[in-house]
């Protein structure tokens, strides 16, 4: 049973990774990051069940809080960038390079 949860978690995590490295839309990228964090959350909950303690729950809550904070910040940044360039394509934001 725990394996299924964990497998799902790993799958989600990998999807997240794939999303970050393959997608150019800033929103999708952030969603992928969220996916990774949620994969971790899933694992936390499942493992908390396995170990029968509350640490995992606490962690999951904290991760969610962090994810929310990051999302808020991310949205602000995306809006800011959109104001500057009118685009949400990460490839556009490569003025800093070399």
């Amino acid at each position, binding site marked *: 049973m725990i394996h299924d949860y964990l497998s799902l978690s790993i799958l989600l995590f990998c999807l997240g990774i794939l999303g970050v*490295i*393959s997608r*150019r839309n800033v929103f999708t*990228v952030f969603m992928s990051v969220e996916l990774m964090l949620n994969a971790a959350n899933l694992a936390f909950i499942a493992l908390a069940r396995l170990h029968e303690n509350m640490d995992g729950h606490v962690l999951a809550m904290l991760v969610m809080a962090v994810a929310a904070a990051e999302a808020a910040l991310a949205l602000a940044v995306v809006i800011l960038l959109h104001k500057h360039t009118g685009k949400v394509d*990460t490839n556009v*934001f*490569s003025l*800093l390079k*070399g």
Partner: protein
Amino acid sequence: MAQNVSYLGMIPLLPLIGAAVVGILHLATCKKKRLPDQLYAVLACSTPILTFVLAVKVFFDLNGLPVDGRALTHEVFTWFEVGEMNISMGFLADPLSSLMLLFVTFTASLIHIYSIGYMAGDESFAKFFAYLNLFLGSMLILVLGNGPVVMFVGWEGVGLCSYLLISYYSEDRSNVLAGNKAFIVNRIGDFGFVLGMAFLFWAIGDSGFDYISLKTNAHMLAPATVTLVCLLLFVGATGKSAQIPLYVWLPDAMAGPTPVSALIHAATMVTAGVYMVARFSFLYVHVPTVGLIVAWTGILTALVSAIYGMFQNDIKKVLAYSTVSQLGYMFAGVGLAAYSAGIFHVFTHAFFKALLFLGAGSVIYALHHEQNIWKMGGLKTKLPLTYKTMLIGSLALAGCPPFSGFFSKDEILYSALASGHTGIWVVGVLVAGMTAYYTFRMIFVVFHGSPRDAHAYEHAHEPPAVMTVPLVILAIGALFAGFLNLPSLFGGSQQVTHWLAPSLAEHAHEASHSIEIIAIAASVAAFAIGIFIAYRKFGKGAEEPVYSGFSSFAYHTFRINELYDVLFVRPYKAIGSAIGNLIDAHVTDGPVQLIVWFYRQFGSTFKLLQVGYVRVYAIYMIIGLSVMSYLLTQSFK
């Protein structure tokens, strides 16, 4: 054995002090108010005269000693002492050096006095005398130095002065080039000298590196070492004494003022090589093969330069080649272990060659620095005293009996014949004839016939007494010096040879009087033939010949200078330029530049990797993580 005296050090020191005083006074005042030339003249001339007095004292002191103990030493201070190497600044006066001392200081005194007249009015009168004094000091160190290292001080010192004085008229590039050539060629010889000295030292030097100890320990040397040392020292001698293949500097050295040519490039410095070989006679005597090399080098030099001498136009060049030629004789003498004969020729040569140069100087002075003999002529009447003295000098040089040159040269030729080296003797006699020819060619062209340049002739006049008196004194020397070593054939007792005997490791050649008579007859015949041909060709006036064919080749000294230029000078300069400007910057520095280049290349590669796309950065991270994971799984095994 040797007696310690405390005044030997004074002898070289006096002229050096003189040089310093005159030099400093000159430097301090030349730009502002010049001091009178007379002051410098007095200062500068006093030192050679004083040294001459001391030389005489040395001679009498030595004379007062028993024959076996005729050596005065003076160890002034320990020069340097490093490990087994203990070199002291010591001086040695033995019969050999005392003889050298006498004529060096004597001719130097006369030439100093002569120079007062010759250099009068020169802008750097004092500088000239400072250099002359410096030269004299160095020469005396060379002569008196006890041990090769001290000798080397003088050896290089005279080389330096020679350079300075050749380049004296430094505005003219060719003069300076001549000076450079002299110094560099001498340095090549010195290279040999230093090496010879080093090998000698590491063989026996640890138990004393002065002549007396060396002489005592010479028997401990391996024959191979002796050969090597003698050859290397001879390389030094060829440089200093202008022998094949290093003679090329001496003719060019005539660029210096004429008294310099007389003093340095005829009478004293150039004979240092001969003196050195005689000094090391205790080594050379053990290696006859090397002696033969020395003798042949000498006699061939004599031949070659005599050939050059027959086709020169410049009065000083004629004399210069004759000097080279006479030096060749001397080497032939010392090479054949007839050291006293060689040294005696050095001695007489100093008189007549200094005389000839000073005479030539008078002519040049009289003609306002005209040196081409084909612009002269008929000067006999205008410069009678000069003519007479030069005639005496020429006769001595040409080997006319009973002039000094006859006895000394004859003794060398006689020893060649007596020791069975007929080849050397034949060449020697041939050269004697050629010597007579070119000497009298010069005399006839310059003094006889009719004037070729009427204007110069009109203005020619006998130089002042300060110049003529030395000429006369030297002429007397040239005339009579030969009698000092009169061979027994003429009822003499060979005083000079006997005087020198304690210093030299000489075996006397026992030969019959008949051989001696043959030798003399041949020399006199050669002299007569030479002078006859010269008279036939030039006695009644002749025009400047057009050199062609062999004579042109000889006039250009067999193109040896050009050959050296092509073989050594140009390649050396080209290599220098190539290394300094190309190879060093691009080849030697190449590895460094290559590293830098790679570093930069890598740098630009890494710059390319920083693409700026955030996705790519994430990919890098994932790749990194994969590698990390891989390494982690590796460690599970």
